[in-house]
């Protein structure tokens, strides 16, 4: 294996957050960004071809190792911690924040037709949503947006990776699973 690829592999493995190409470029100042992206791509393909238990995936603007989703039932038996779960009201609130950000609480309340305070607080605590600032209107309401952790948890490369809302109508007809499962 090309030595640089081996080092990049170790870096992606050891990084606490998805490792960006820019970060790798800082560590290898002698390499061009294109070259690094090429090396990472090669690594991604190698694991894809192999079809093993782990894969390299692009998430939240960086790369990380993650397990194949078909192995999840066994890992569930291993891990003591409860899997992440969100209530329907938390999911609805999160969807509104994700698609309409930056967004104020009043808008979320209006769209959902109920007070979203509790759901919003839960999402803030889980660090899926954050306070972005204040809107420059009377009352200066707090505006909310999603976090990098949101991208990490939902396996999104970036916010642009969210399907457009009209696109979603079509997706609804087909199998949602088909679009979500890329790793196995």
């Amino acid at each position, binding site marked *: 294996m090309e030595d640089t690829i081996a080092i990049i592999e170790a870096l992606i493995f050891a990084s606490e957050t998805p490792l960006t190409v820019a970060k790798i470029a800082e560590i290898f100042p002698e390499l061009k960004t294109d070259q690094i992206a090429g090396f990472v791509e090669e690594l991604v393909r190698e694991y894809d071809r192999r079809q093993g238990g782990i894969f390299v995936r692009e998430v939240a603007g960086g790369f990380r190792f993650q397990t194949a989703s078909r192995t*999840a039932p066994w890992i569930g038996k291993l*891990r003591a*911690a409860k899997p992440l779960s969100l209530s329907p009201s938390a999911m609805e609130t999160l969807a509104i924040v994700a698609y309409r950000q930056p967004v104020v609480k009043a808008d979320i309340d209006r769209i959902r037709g109920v007070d979203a305070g509790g759901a919003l607080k839960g999402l803030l605590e889980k660090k899926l949503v954050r306070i972005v600032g204040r809107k420059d209107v009377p009352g200066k309401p707090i505006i909310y947006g999603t976090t990098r952790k949101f991208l990490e948890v939902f396996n999104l490369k970036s916010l642009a990776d969210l399907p457009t809302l009209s696109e979603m109508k079509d997706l609804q007809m087909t199998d*949602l699973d088909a679009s979500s499962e890329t790793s196995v």
Partner: protein
Amino acid sequence: MAYEIKLDVFEGPLDLLLYLIRKNEIDIYDIPISLVAQQYMEYLNTMRSLNLDLAGEYLVMAATLAHIKSRMLLPTVDTVGEEDEEEDPRAELVRQLLEYQRYKEAAGFLAARPLLERDVFNLGVLPEGTSTPADDFLLEVDLFELVEAFRRILSQIHDDEPLEFSTEKLSLADRMNEIMETLSQEGNTSFSELLIIRSSKRLVVYTFLAILELVKLRMVTARQAVPFGEIRLFLSVGKRDEITGTSEGA
């Protein structure tokens, strides 16, 4: 097809309405409002009889439905095709339902993605490495955590002293910090310079109050060379190295 109903599963009045629309196979653009209003009320009554907590929003929607129903019953002026004459009383509700439905679908889409810690997993433990914090470290903190920390502390205090704060006080602190920053960079500045550049009246007042507060705290000294001359402000506190050693941008 029979639907099994769990009364506590609705996420709100809009969710309940969407359910009724689906159940009755109704065209969302042409809702038979009396049917839907009647069924909505039946669900509310069932929920009440089961002692389920009814959020106020459900009652507001009940009133809205009743209002739309009454408007639908009113004889309308014969407006042939001209929709801008008078809008369908249901239009606003339909818009709301469609918008809510879109985000409900979006929520479903998000939930169907391979979720971290549910479908895919990260490395269990990071390999040990040289974890020496560098000088120029990145701080990863959250504003929510800060406020929560403050709220947590306040909730533990049963003091008589009110610990609530006002934005006025913070605006004052903002101005005090800015003046101190100017002074630590430039050594001194003139009174009028600080006040003149301020465009809004509010800001001038805060700046003036901030200067008074700083003088009162003996953090700055105000000096005048001649009577009625220019007032200049000087940093007056502590030993200089002690201040600059810990302050910003030293």
